[in-house]
């Protein structure tokens, strides 16, 4: 057991730290966070810099443009970028979900075609899984794809699709065989978002911001071979995607929570931080952060030793989401009635108001807390299935 960096890891960390300082705008790490709208041009520019410096796809196989490094390097990357609040790569869905699934299921041609522009941020991906009638119940997807000559013709509607409004490609779960059983009738398409018949409508959320989208498909024609796996493999391919979403998530969640705890400490210091009840609650958030961090480390160590993430990893997203909800509410409570302001005159221009409202989505997106508790109860603890 040893939590310290190896000499190679330490060198990588130092180099990254130096690069971040040199590359981020002056004073970036110490700025007061604000709820400012996501800046696409800035993010694209930052993505390019990350890519040119070799920090994208650190753990991906070298043959597809990755760095071939162990998972700890991605962990160090996320820790260091969180510490200074560096922006994300624009291809969050591509790097976390589409890319790993293409690596696992794609043909050589698909890998060569899709992975390099994905890493470079030249092509942005979105996810078409949830539908108005099937959220947690992915196998209930009703978006249809019917073969017409050498093309699939897609009709249906997807929802909660982040980045769809700027996406070039979509990983899309469709029903190709309505006669087959629920799971066996699904297939997994790679769909050009610029194709005729694709329409993206932003969805305004509880925060008032349009972060997610509805995506409508009307007679969208997709080449027959633009599929991962065979017709009917859709469920298994989608499980690969979700496994990666949940598997690589631990570090990202730890990094996000670390940033949030640092913000909370900054806010508390600004407002005095002398109330013992508040201090107790802030300490609890810090402890919850460390619990997430070290649980993720344990899961990762199991992954490195056995090739399978440890079962404790299943708690990461559940714990993170509920912690982030408590933390952001605590941050509002430090502001008294001023917590109700969300524009001019609000603390940090309304950063916490946005964060608190946004946090309600955390226990819904990427597996609701109810689904995650089912998974823990049934697949980890071994209780009988509830349905």
């Amino acid at each position: 057991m040893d939590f310290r960096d190896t000499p190679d890891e330490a060198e990588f960390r130092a180099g990254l730290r130096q690069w971040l300082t040199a590359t981020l705008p002056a004073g970036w790490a110490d700025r007061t966070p604000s709820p400012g709208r996501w800046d696409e041009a800035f993010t694209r520019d930052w993505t390019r810099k990350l890519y040119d410096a070799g920090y994208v796809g650190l753990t991906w196989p070298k043959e597809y443009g990755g760095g071939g490094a162990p998972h700890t390097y991605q962990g160090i990357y996320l820790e260091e970028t969180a510490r200074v609040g560096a922006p994300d790569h624009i291809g969050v869905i591509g790097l976390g979900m589409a890319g790993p699934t293409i690596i696992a299921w794609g043909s050589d041609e698909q890998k060569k075609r899709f992975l390099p522009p994905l890493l470079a941020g030249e092509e942005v991906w979105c996810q078409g899984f949830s539908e108005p009638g099937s959220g947690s119940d992915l196998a209930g997807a009703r978006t249809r794809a019917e073969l017409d000559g050498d093309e699939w013709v897609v009709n249906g509607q997807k929802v909660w699709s982040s980045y769809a409004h700027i996406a070039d490609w979509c990983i899309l779960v469709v029903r190709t065989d309505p006669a087959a059983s629920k799971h066996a009738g699904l297939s997994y398409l790679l769909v050009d978002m610029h194709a005729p018949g694709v329409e993206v409508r932003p969805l305004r959320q509880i925060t008032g911001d349009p972060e997610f989208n509805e995506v409508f498909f009307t007679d969208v024609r997709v080449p027959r071979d633009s599929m991962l796996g065979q017709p009917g493999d859709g469920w298994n391919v989608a499980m690969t995607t979700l496994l990666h979403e949940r598997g690589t998530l631990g570090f990202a969640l730890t990094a996000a929570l670390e940033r949030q705890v640092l913000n909370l400490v900054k806010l508390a210091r600004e407002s005095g931080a002398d109330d013992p009840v508040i201090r107790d609650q802030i300490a609890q958030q810090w402890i919850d952060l460390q619990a997430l961090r070290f649980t993720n480390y344990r899961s990762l160590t199991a992954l490195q030793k056995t090739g399978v993430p440890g079962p404790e990893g299943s708690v990461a997203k559940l714990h993170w989401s509920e912690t982030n909800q408590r933390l952001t509410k605590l941050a509002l409570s430090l502001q008294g009635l001023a917590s109700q302001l969300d524009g001019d005159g609000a603390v940090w221009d309304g950063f916490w108001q946005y964060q608190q409202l946004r946090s309600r989505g955390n226990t819904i997106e990427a597996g609701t807390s109810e689904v995650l508790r089912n998974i823990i109860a049934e697949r980890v603890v071994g209780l009988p299935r509830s349905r």
Partner: protein
Amino acid sequence: MDFAFSEEQELLRASVRDYLRDRYGDERVVALAESDAGWDPSSWRELVDMGWLDPSLGLLEHAVIAEESAYALLPAPWFSTVALASPLLDEKLHEQPVSVGLGGVVSATPDGLTGNVALIPDLAAVTHVIVRADDDALYAVETSPDVVVARSTMDRTRRLGELRLDRTPARRLDVPVSALTDVRRRALALAACEAVGVAQRALDLAAAHTKTREQFGRVIGTYQAVSHRVADIFVALQLGRSLAYWAAWAVSENDPQADVAVSAAKAAATEGAVLACEYAIQAHGGIGFTYEHVLHRYYKRAQWLEAFEGYGREHRAVVAAAILDSEGAVA
């Protein structure tokens, strides 16, 4: 970064687990808990022979034994001897069951020690207790019946006692009082590891029950109102375990974060163990509320651990000071 026990440490865990399964089934633990002594003093030799008191063991090995012995609810003063006394022991106390009175200072006079120290773990079970005197020294006292007052304790497998000294002969130890800082850090880390063992047993009991018990024609584990609480036990267990192992490692390496690590781990793991037992009792329904069922014994150990050397809020105050009051904030 490597967050796993070594192969040797896992072998130790397996041997500890085998021994406890073999020798300390629930039935025997309950019988011992209900006995006057509260344990079987003749079993001490077995622990010594198995090397559980071997000075070559480090804190990570102690962490493994603490977790497993709490899982079995081993009634023996191993925790007091290893988690509390071990950094203070010399040749003469070697392999003896010993406890430490952290809760008071007695006065040293030429004819012995005088004063009371309350709430000492396992006091009636150990041969010696180490106390601090007002001459800034540590002393070992023999626990003869005339200086020990046993207190009825909810956790009958780890009873507390009061030491009453009146010009009692004592042997001055050649260890500085400052060693108590190390004693406390180790004790907090190992209390957290014990809490992990307790929570694991609570999970196993809850899982076994909810997999088989039927109501309304179905196994109750299929009801999400039940199964989600079992999932929450798993969550609390895993989070506590991560912190407890981190704390044990940090203390063993004298890491700069050791003090906040042990406070974080002690608070979270012991509160997690209490929650685990409460949810397990609830999942068992009426049977979980009976004296016959073993669960209440784990619940009482969990609460004992939660109360030992400061409830969670006292430890969160330590953490709060570290992250809010110092310049180079701990992150």
